[in-house]
């Protein structure tokens, strides 16, 4: 058995290297697309920003300030080079570095996304495992029916219903806004609970179904029967064999769901008036602040690409069959 180990490590190493190369190319392609869409196609951002009544001198002055008089390739390279050093350029509407603005807003968006993903995972795994263990019984049917409805509910409407119930009727939470982490961290966390729940419940509906069917699929496998036949307890079979194997499809969907979570966060932040990236990008659109929109869209797309990469790397660790695909 020991002889196989270096061989498997080599295969995984090659897989990871190839995956890393794809990851870098994807990131580069995304940056070209975002730059092409927002930096070149709309024409002169200075004209757009100053409006139709602007004088040619004013446009020229702003163009120089924004560096728009340079060729597109040079602008692209300095944009990407700057981002690699954490410099996303200057926001015209706020007269502040884009990176500073994004950093401030991430203090709301990142904890919200993290809280929502944690809630999603806990809720989905618990419901999925429960449904699988009660296969075709009332509990299973109930979970499946509830999840079918959950999938059909738009997260922003669920958010509005939560506000109606917990803020308007019961007055347990505020209907929106964010007090900031410095003044009262507990109140700040409380302000993120309803938004996170509204994101998590809808996502968990999908993930619970995937967990249930993945667990049921694995439970039908021969190796599970063998494990049972050699006398392992139901719990040991479930934890040692079923969950590990069922986790691969669950992880795939979690990776795909992250893109939904990113967009869901933008929408839900607007429902609860949270000062996160989602609000910032809309303010940037209204202010015609192209560089700020460009920075935020790039950051969000890069987040999705990074998460997909991390999920693929995790496969290599979790999936015992990976060597076949590599």
């Amino acid at each position, binding site marked *: 058995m020991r002889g196989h180990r270096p061989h498997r490590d080599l295969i995984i190493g090659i897989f990871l290297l190839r995956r890393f190369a*794809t990851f870098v190319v*994807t990131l580069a*392609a*995304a940056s070209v*697309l*975002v730059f092409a*869409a*927002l930096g070149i*196609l*709309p024409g002169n951002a200075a004209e757009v920003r100053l409006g139709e009544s602007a004088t040619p001198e004013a446009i020229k002055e702003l163009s120089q300030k924004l560096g728009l008089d340079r060729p597109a390739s040079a602008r692209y390279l300095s944009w990407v080079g700057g981002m690699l050093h954490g410099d996303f350029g200057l926001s015209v509407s706020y007269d502040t570095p884009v990176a500073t603005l994004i950093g401030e807003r991430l203090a709301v968006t990142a904890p919200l996304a993290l809280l929502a993903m944690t809630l999603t995972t806990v809720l989905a795994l618990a419901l999925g495992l429960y449904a699988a263990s009660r296969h075709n019984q009332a509990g299973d049917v109930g979970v499946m029916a509830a999840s*079918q*409805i959950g*999938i*059909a*509910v*738009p997260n*922003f*409407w669920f958010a*509005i*219903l939560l*506000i*109606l119930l917990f803020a*308007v009727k019961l007055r347990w939470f505020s*209907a929106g806004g964010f007090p900031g982490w410095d003044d009262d961290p507990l109140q700040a966390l409380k302000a993120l609970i309803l938004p996170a729940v509204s994101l998590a419940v809808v996502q968990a509906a999908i993930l619970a179904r995937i967990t249930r069917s993945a667990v049921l699929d694995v439970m039908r496998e021969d190796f599970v029967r063998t494990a049972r036949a050699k006398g392992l307890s139901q719990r040991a079979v479930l934890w040692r064999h079923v969950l590990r194997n069922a986790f691969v499809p669950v992880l795939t969907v979690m990776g*795909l769901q992250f*893109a*939904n979570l*990113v*967009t869901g966060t*933008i*929408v839900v932040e*607007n*429902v609860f008036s949270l000062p996160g990236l989602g609000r910032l*990008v*809309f303010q*940037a*659109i209204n202010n*015609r602040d*192209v560089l700020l*929109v460009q920075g935020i*869209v790039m950051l*969000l*797309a890069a987040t*999705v*690409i990074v998460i*997909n990469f991390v999920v693929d790397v995790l496969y290599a660790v979790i999936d015992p069959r990976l060597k076949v695909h590599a």
Partner: protein
Amino acid sequence: MTFMQRAWRHKSFAIGATLVALLILTALLSFVWTPYPAGEIDVPNKLKPMSAAHWLGTDSLGRDVVSMLLVGARYGVAVGLIAVGIGITAGVALGLYAAARRGWIEELIMRSADFTLAFPALLTAIMLTAIYGPGLVTSIVAIGIFNIPEFARITRASANAIWTREYVLASRACGKSRWHITFSHVLPNIANVLIVQATIRFAIAILAEAALSYLGLGTQPPTPSWGRMLNEGQAMMYQAPWLAVWPGLAIVFSVLGLNLMGDGLRDLLDPRLARQR
């Protein structure tokens, strides 16, 4: 048993198809009849609760909620149909081409599809809005683009399975061209998968359109849309909470109907499952 008989015995399909039929009838009805002209402002009658005159009440400008919901259905269905149409046309063409050509072309198309997934409909809509401003076309294009890689992936995977079948091998041995095989064998055999996928993507398109309209990136005033009705309803939550409920229910029933119909179709159109029945 005929397909229709089997279909009506399938609970998911029957419930889903009924809800979808209601959605389409509602959208069609709005062309010939609404209780009041949709969008007609009647300020003296603003924020009226449910009554015989206004079945689901009126909004902050006195507009009749039922009339707005009926016309909103029309736009939801239209955006869904066009966005799925864009996705299915481009996605299926790319998927079929990838499966027929294989090699680096397949690799390139599929990697591009993976890449497009990094840009969810909302991000594309944000970029388009930053350039061209918000509107119905922006949301249709954004949702349509997002659908392309989904259809390309599923088409290519299903088509690859068909290309390994013996009847395809026989056809190739007879000297038929790739394109002949693609259109006479591959496409007809993956049509079922595509129908199911189109139903489910339609549901996702309705959800996406509602979200974009809610955010102000989609349908613009005075055109009624369910997403924007929710946005306006949220502002009146303390005075008239029902305004934030009805459009949401309309979205849920539409999406639920399409999803149930898609699940039902998957069972009904899969010959392996059909034989077991």
